[in-house]
């Protein structure tokens, strides 16, 4: 005997309704990540050393990402001594695209490769680029979407204010 039509419809609807992922919220603990770097070694987040981590999700095709890299390099150079760690997580499906991008726009901070975009799913990114500022224990201090050159000043002030805290 075939299943009741009502049951069939209910089962179908249950299958079709996807559970939406929750976006990263300030104050929550960010998902931990372990991803390969370009040299094959693993990058862990958090690493237990950095006082503050600025994690930036980028892709080679994303215009604002290109604009953000010189600023990210500056932040790394300026605040690494005070405990800032800048991590760029590449979400290109083809790693070759990321390599080409990095030839043009060199990164002087840690780069992790995530062609499967597992980290993007876990962080439930809403746009590209997306960035999060994390405390030493992985707590989310701030989430930032997109990058305009005008954002740089406010972001730097935020980084500085958290590094200046004892």
């Amino acid at each position, binding site marked *: *005997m*075939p*299943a*009741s*039509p*009502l049951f*069939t*419809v209910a089962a*179908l*609807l249950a299958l*079709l*309704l*996807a559970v939406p992922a929750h976006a990263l919220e300030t104050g929550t603990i960010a998902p931990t990540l372990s991803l390969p770097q370009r040299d094959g070694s693993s990058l862990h987040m958090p690493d237990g050393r950095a006082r503050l981590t600025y994690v930036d*999700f980028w*892709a*080679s*095709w*994303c*215009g*604002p990402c290109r*604009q953000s890299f010189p600023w990210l390099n500056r932040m790394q150079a300026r605040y690494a001594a005070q405990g800032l760690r800048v991590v760029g997580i590449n*979400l*290109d*499906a083809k790693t070759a*695209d990321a390599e080409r991008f990095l030839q043009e726009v060199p990164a002087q901070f840690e780069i992790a490769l995530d062609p499967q*975009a597992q980290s*993007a*799913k876990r962080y439930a*990114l*809403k*746009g*590209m*680029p*997306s960035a999060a500022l994390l405390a030493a224990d992985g707590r989310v201090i701030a989430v930032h*979407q*997109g*990058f*305009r050159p005008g954002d740089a000043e406010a972001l730097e002030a935020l980084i500085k204010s958290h590094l200046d805290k004892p």
Partner: protein
Amino acid sequence: MSGGSWIQRRARVAGMMVCASLLLTACGTLQPPQPWQRGLLAKPGMRLEADPLQQRFDQHIQTSKENASGGSGIGGGGCGCN
């Protein structure tokens, strides 16, 4: 009425209900590409404008008229930020 036709009738009703539920949801359950999956869509060839020069010209006019820019490509970010 024989048992076979009863089963057939129930099967037909069930089939119709399945079709109806699929039609009802149509494409509504298809997920749009995620922000990080737009690499192919961001390629210049995926733009609706065939002529890049013409597009630049049109964008310039639009920027002047609307006092706003952006939103004409995917590479800008999928967040409306550029």
